[in-house]
């Protein structure tokens, strides 16, 4: 029956924004579904509404309107069943710093109804799996950021959930710890038909981990599909032009806009990025036009569309600009 592990329809969530301001619309009719056993990446800049979506799906928060089924249960009508079926790793670290890693895991297991023995066994198993065995008896406050995050994920797995929610699992980690955790998530997703919904604002992470992507902007999903399909949906190539001086008055933009086979152009400081039909013909044309006007150039590069281009296509902003604005 339930081929979807998560089915959310038209979620709206507003937060009061002080007396004078109108309420802030964090989710504005968000609809998303995740197939069983799939890793879905919810990708978007800060403030897009990713955490809000996760909080509603995990029953922590409640939508103003819309509906959501998680593991086949309605989040409003059967929150307790949903809670028993999911693991939730919040954006902020969710372990008790005064307790040891082992104690954290055992307590979590027991809250989900495991016996003391089962809980202890499961806790040891998870410590081992996340390479934390030798730190299991140390208070969490002595852990590094990467170790804490691994423990957070382990805490979400104690009771063998059907659906795991990871809210920005690697934000703030150094590259090594991030790669470590990525490997862990990849391993997880291959096992036991676990469905994973992870949020991220790293394009690279989404590309690496998610089999399905949903791009969120201003509280809505603006594009969905596999990373490959999303990239393939963009015709042509992407050209990046790096100038010596910023194009403050828009002359370069106007100049390139006139060339044949050039799509939308986005300016960010010293760089211009354009969608082109064919990189091989566009580059000489671009270089020629710039040389004619004696505009100094640092570099011109061509690339296959990236997720950043997908993002640009659907939101009208490049990911980096959206991030900085947030």
């Amino acid at each position: 029956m339930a081929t979807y592990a998560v089915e959310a329809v038209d979620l709206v969530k507003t937060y009061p924004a002080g007396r004078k301001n109108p309420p802030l619309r964090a989710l504005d009719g968000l609809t998303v579904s995740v197939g069983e056993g799939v890793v879905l990446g919810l990708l978007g800049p800060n403030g897009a509404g990713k955490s809000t979506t996760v909080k509603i799906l995990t029953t922590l928060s409640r939508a103003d309107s819309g509906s959501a089924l998680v593991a086949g249960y309605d989040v409003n009508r059967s929150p307790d069943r949903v809670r028993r079926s999911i693991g939730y790793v919040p954006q902020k670290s969710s372990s008790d710093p005064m307790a040891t890693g082992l104690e954290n895991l055992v307590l979590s297991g027991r809250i989900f109804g495991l016996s003391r023995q089962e809980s202890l066994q499961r806790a040891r198993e998870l410590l081992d799996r996340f390479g934390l065995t030798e730190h299991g008896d140390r208070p969490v406050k002595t852990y590094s950021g990467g170790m804490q995050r691994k423990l957070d994920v382990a805490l979400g797995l104690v009771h063998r959930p059907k659906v795991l929610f990871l809210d920005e699992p690697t934000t703030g980690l150094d590259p090594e710890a991030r790669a470590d955790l990525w490997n862990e998530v990849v391993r997880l997703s291959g096992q036991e038909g676990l469905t994973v919904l992870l949020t991220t604002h790293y394009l690279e992470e989404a590309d690496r981990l998610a089999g399905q992507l949903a791009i969120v902007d201003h509280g809505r999903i603006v594009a969905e599909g596999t990373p490959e399909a999303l990239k393939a949906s963009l015709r042509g190539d992407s050209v990046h032009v790096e100038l010596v001086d910023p194009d403050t008055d828009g002359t370069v933009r106007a100049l390139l806009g006139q060339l044949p086979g050039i799509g939308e152009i986005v300016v960010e400081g010293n760089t211009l990025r354009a969608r082109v039909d064919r990189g091989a013909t566009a580059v000489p044309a671009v270089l020629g036009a710039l040389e004619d006007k004696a505009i100094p150039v640092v570099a011109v590069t061509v690339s296959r569309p990236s997720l950043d281009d997908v993002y640009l296509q659907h939101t009208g902003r490049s990911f980096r600009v959206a991030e900085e604005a947030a």
Partner: protein
Amino acid sequence: MIAHTGLVFGRWMRASYRQPALIAFTLVQPAIWLLLFGQLFQGVVRLPGFGDSSYIAFLTPGIVMMTALMTSGWSGTSFVQDMERGVMDRMLASPVSRGGLMAGQLLSNATTTLIQTILVFAIGIAAGARYDGGIFGYLVTIVASMLVGTAFGSLSNAVALLTRQQEALIGISQFVSLPLTFMSSIMIDPTVAPHWVNVAARFNPVDWATIAARQSLAAAPDWSSVSRHCLYLLAFTLIVGWLSTRAFRTYQRSV
């Protein structure tokens, strides 16, 4: 709920015995109050009707209640810490019983109160306080102090869930606990206090506890007064306990 209460209680007890500095502070503070106020008022206050008893004997049950009140005002800081991390959110998205989440923390808070009460009595007695009431008097005092701790601990937890800020919590709890301490018979006998203080004290749960404790420790306790005040206190504790458990919902609506 009972199983979850036990689990949550265990968590907070482990956390507190890992903070020896905090334990020391919670024990030294009431000792200082008792000795300081004892010295301060001893010579100044000539209590009519206190002929053969000492001021320290009068003061000790009062300091017990004051300590229970003041310490419990901090109770909510543990919730604030959980909210600053993702612990509270993870818990609330789990099947944990909300009642258990509240009760377990309050039980660990009440355990602190219990230890403080015993310590204050030990110091009071060492300083010369004597009571005719016997073991039952001590028991009533201990139960009353734990009820004060639980009632004001759950208020503090509720304020924590509503404000989510350490500063706001401490501000509010001090704003409430100072008047409750002074508009009561904790330090001065009602017969020498201004009339309006006595009126205010009638509505003060800390004063109910103080009266119940003093009465039950006296040579000839007025048991009807003891049970009436204990009943008020119990009802108050249950009501605020229930209300504060509702505060989880308010918190969940705001995240």
